[in-house]
Structures are given as C-alpha cells and as structure tokens.
C-alpha cells in the first residue's frame, strides 16, 4: 500500500511538472512555428491536457528504473524530490507549499466545475426546465443552414428563459437549445450567425472533444496548469467555430454583434468579500474572452490555415523526450 501511495504522489508531482514544461514548450512552439489559426492552436494546446496524464505510466512501463537513485543522479535533468525537500526560511518545506497550491486548485475545480454540474443535474431531476416547440420558421432556417454545411439537421428546442443564450447538447444526436431571450432580443442577422455558430460546433464535434478534455481535466483536478489550459481550449474551440461561421455567412460583423449581447454587466469595482471578488473576476474574465473573440472577428485577415503535421510531430516528440528526464 505504501508503494502505491508513493507512486501516486510521484504521479501527481510529475503530472504537474510535466504540464508546466509542456505548456511552456507548446506556447513557444506556437510562436516559433507561427501557428496563428485557432484550429492549429487547439491541436497543440490539447496536448498539455492529455500528454502529462499518459506520460508517467508510459515512462514507467518503458523504463521501470526511471525513479531509481541512479536515474536521478546520472540522467535526470530535474529532480522534483530535492526541490520539494527544500525548507523556506529553514521552516516551511516547499512540499507543503506545493501541496497547498494543488489543494487550492482542487477546491477551485470543485466549486467552479463539479458543483455546478451536480446542481444542474439535481435541477433537471427535480423538474426539467420549461421547453417549448420552436417556431416553424426557426426549424426551417436550421434545416437550410445544416444542408449548406453538409450535416444532418439537428433538433432544436426553445428554453423558456429571458436570458439570451444558446448551446449544443448531446454528442450522438445533438440538439440546439435556444432561449426565448435569444428569439426576442436577436435581430435576424444576429440569429442566423448564432445558429450557424452552433451548427459549426456540431460539424466540429465540439461536444465530444470538450467532453474528453473535461474528463482529462477532472482526472487532473489538482493540476493548476490543466485548469488554465482547459479554459484556453474552450476559447480556441469557440474561435474555430467563429471562423467556420464566417466562412458560411460571410458576415463577421453579424456574429460580433450577436456576441456583444452575451456581455455580463460588470460592477465598477470589486466589492469586499470573497464571493463578490470571485464574481468580479469571473465576470471580467468572461467579458475579456468575449472581447478577444469580437476583436478577432472585427480585424481583417484572420488566419484559418491548418498547421503543418511535421512541426507538430517535432514538438510532441521533443516535449515527450524532455519530460522523460524530469522526475
């Protein structure tokens, strides 16, 4: 049992360390290889989520002596155990500090990502929200757009909610959920763009990809790098779908205008108190990400080309070899 616990602590430490190194190398690679398209960036960045999770067991199978004293003294580039044993001011071991950061990340994951999912599931169990049939013209519109994009027409459901939002649910049989707020507030032009954007998610199978990324993120609930990267990936995915939308509608301004309705009202400054501060940060970051997408749509000459496979392989192989020597 002690051996298993030791391996688990090594797994946790190494996944975090490897994530940091992978994040660093991937972000540098994006600049060196000049990967500008969101699709390319997504492909590179998703490695930061999956590689660390798989590397430790893979390395241990390839070389069971990897954790031995002789690997550490002869071959390792970086040994985490010596660093974790360093005591700050001769009192506080860095391992405690490191553990606290991981515990804090696990807490943030629980509060921000796991609890909302549980709450949503409970809400659906106690009484599903009020759905109504979509207007016939909306169904017809979605069918026409699906045909243009070469995908089967998905179902569409209208949620009785005054807040304007829309999203895709389901992986095998996707459904577009549109709120009454969208139908009331959006202009014809904005609605067209918003619907094509959701169809782009279906075309790209975003729900499945995001679900896989979310599972990886949940398995590394303690990893602060995964937390950051997952959010960045969602943003990249949205930008890929923005580009797909524009390629169909040829109306970036229409989509930008639709996105503007999703801005949250920001308080003028953070109020004292933990929950107000969290609200302030989450509102600001939501608006910043939205602003990034709007600015991108408004800028001319968006890069949409796919990255070269050779450069991608060089990056993944290099980072894997590098992480092998980090224990």
């Amino acid at each position, binding site marked *: 049992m002690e051996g298993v616990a030791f391996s688990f602590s090594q797994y946790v430490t190494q996944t975090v360390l490897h994530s940091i*190194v992978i994040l*660093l*190398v991937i972000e*540098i*690679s994006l600049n*060196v*290889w*000049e990967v500008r398209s969101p699709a390319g960036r997504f492909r590179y960045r998703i490695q930061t989520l999956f590689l660390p999770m798989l590397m430790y067991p893979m390395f241990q199978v390839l070389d069971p002596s990897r954790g*031995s*004293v*002789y690997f*550490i*003294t002869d071959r*390792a*580039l*970086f*040994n985490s*155990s*010596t*660093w974790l*044993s*360093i*005591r700050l001011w001769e009192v506080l071991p860095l391992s405690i500090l490191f553990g606290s950061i991981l515990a804090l990340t696990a807490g943030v994951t629980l509060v921000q990502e796991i609890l909302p999912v549980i709450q949503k599931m409970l809400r659906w169990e106690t009484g599903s929200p009020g759905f109504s049939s979509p207007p016939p013209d909306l169904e017809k519109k979605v069918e026409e757009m699906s045909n243009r994009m070469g995908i089967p027409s998905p179902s569409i459901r209208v949620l009785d909610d005054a807040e304007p939002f829309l999203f895709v649910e389901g992986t095998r049989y996707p459904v577009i959920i549109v709120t009454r707020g969208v139908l009331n507030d959006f202009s014809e032009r904005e609605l067209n763009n918003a619907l094509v954007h959701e169809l782009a998610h279906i075309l790209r199978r975003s729900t499945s990809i995001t679900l896989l990324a979310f599972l990886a993120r949940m398995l590394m609930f303690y990893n602060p790098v995964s937390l950051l990267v997952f959010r960045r990936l969602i943003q990249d995915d949205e930008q890929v779908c923005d580009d797909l939308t524009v390629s169909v509608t040829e109306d970036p301004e229409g989509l930008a205008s639709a996105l503007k309705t999703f801005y949250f009202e920001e308080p003028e400054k953070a109020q004292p108190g933990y929950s107000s501060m969290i609200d302030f940060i989450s509102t600001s970051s939501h608006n910043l990400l939205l602003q990034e997408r709007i600015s991108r749509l408004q800028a001319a000459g968006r890069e949409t080309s796919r990255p070269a496979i050779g*450069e991608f392989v*060089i*990056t993944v192989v*290099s980072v894997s070899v*590098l992480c092998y020597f*980090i224990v």
Partner: protein
Amino acid sequence: MRMLKKVIIFLLVLVALVIALRILNWFGATTAIEGIRRFNSLEEAHHQLRLRTLYLPSYFPDYLEWPPFEILGQTTPYKLVLLHIRNQESKEVVLAIRQVESAEVKPPATRLEPFHAGREEAVQLHEHTALLEEGRCADNAPCTRISWSEQSHHLNVILKDGREEILRIASSMEVER
C-alpha cells in the same frame, strides 16, 4: 530555408530549457538538506554528511580501483553512505559498500542489485554475527553479499567475487574517523 531557421530556433529554445532545468536541479541539490547526493571524495562526504563513523575496508583485492568510482550519501531522512568501486581493467563496478544508520528503512539499491540470493550462511565477523549469501548480481554474474549490524550502523557489502574475498574485505572493515 525559412523552415530550417524555424527548426534551429526551436532547437535553441529546447537547449535553453535543458540548461535552465540543469541549473535549477543543481541549485536544488545544493540547497536541499534531504535526498541523496554525489560526492567527489570520501573526505568531502565525511565532512558534509557530518559522519561520526565511516566503515572502510583496509584490505582490497589487487584488481580494485581506489578511490571509489562513486560516493553517494544523504543525511536526512536517515544517514546513508554508498560506495561503488570498480575493477581497474574492466572499469565495471564490482564492489558496493552500503552503510545505513537506521534499521527501519529500505535503503536505495546498489548498482549491483537486485541480488538474487542462493546459499545463506551465518558467519562470525569480529564480535558480530553476519549473514553471508552467495548468489547472482543484477547482470546474473556470480556474487556474494554480507550483511551485519555494528553499533547503530547496518552494513552491506556486495562483491562480484567468491566468499573468501568478501570475508577478507568485511573482516578488514574499520571505522574511519
């Protein structure tokens, strides 16, 4: 040409990252008090590990190379000294001496381990009873191992040679102060 430039920049970045990791590792090793470290000489190990006693043999078969090829040690969580001595000609590690100041731990393996024990025998060494084992080393070569406790120290000697030589080496082990 442009691609070649990109590849060179990428490789330079990787080299810089490797150097940075090496520097961080070196800094960690010099700052940390826990964990195993390598020493350049027995004097350095003796001094830095603040050892009160270090058991060293005064008898060595002719084919051994002195000083030890590798000296590893640590102070915390427990004191440990690990010496690896090579054959003069083949430069292969043939003798490992491990001294541990705690009975409650599983110390790191020597370079000759895992040792696959065959015949076991209790032998008298000074006033202590030692366990002499004949078996095979990690590379399947014939090996002998002798283990005993003296004061608070637990000693293991592994030799790629027969029982006569290991008994001579173990019998000659004295405290180096």
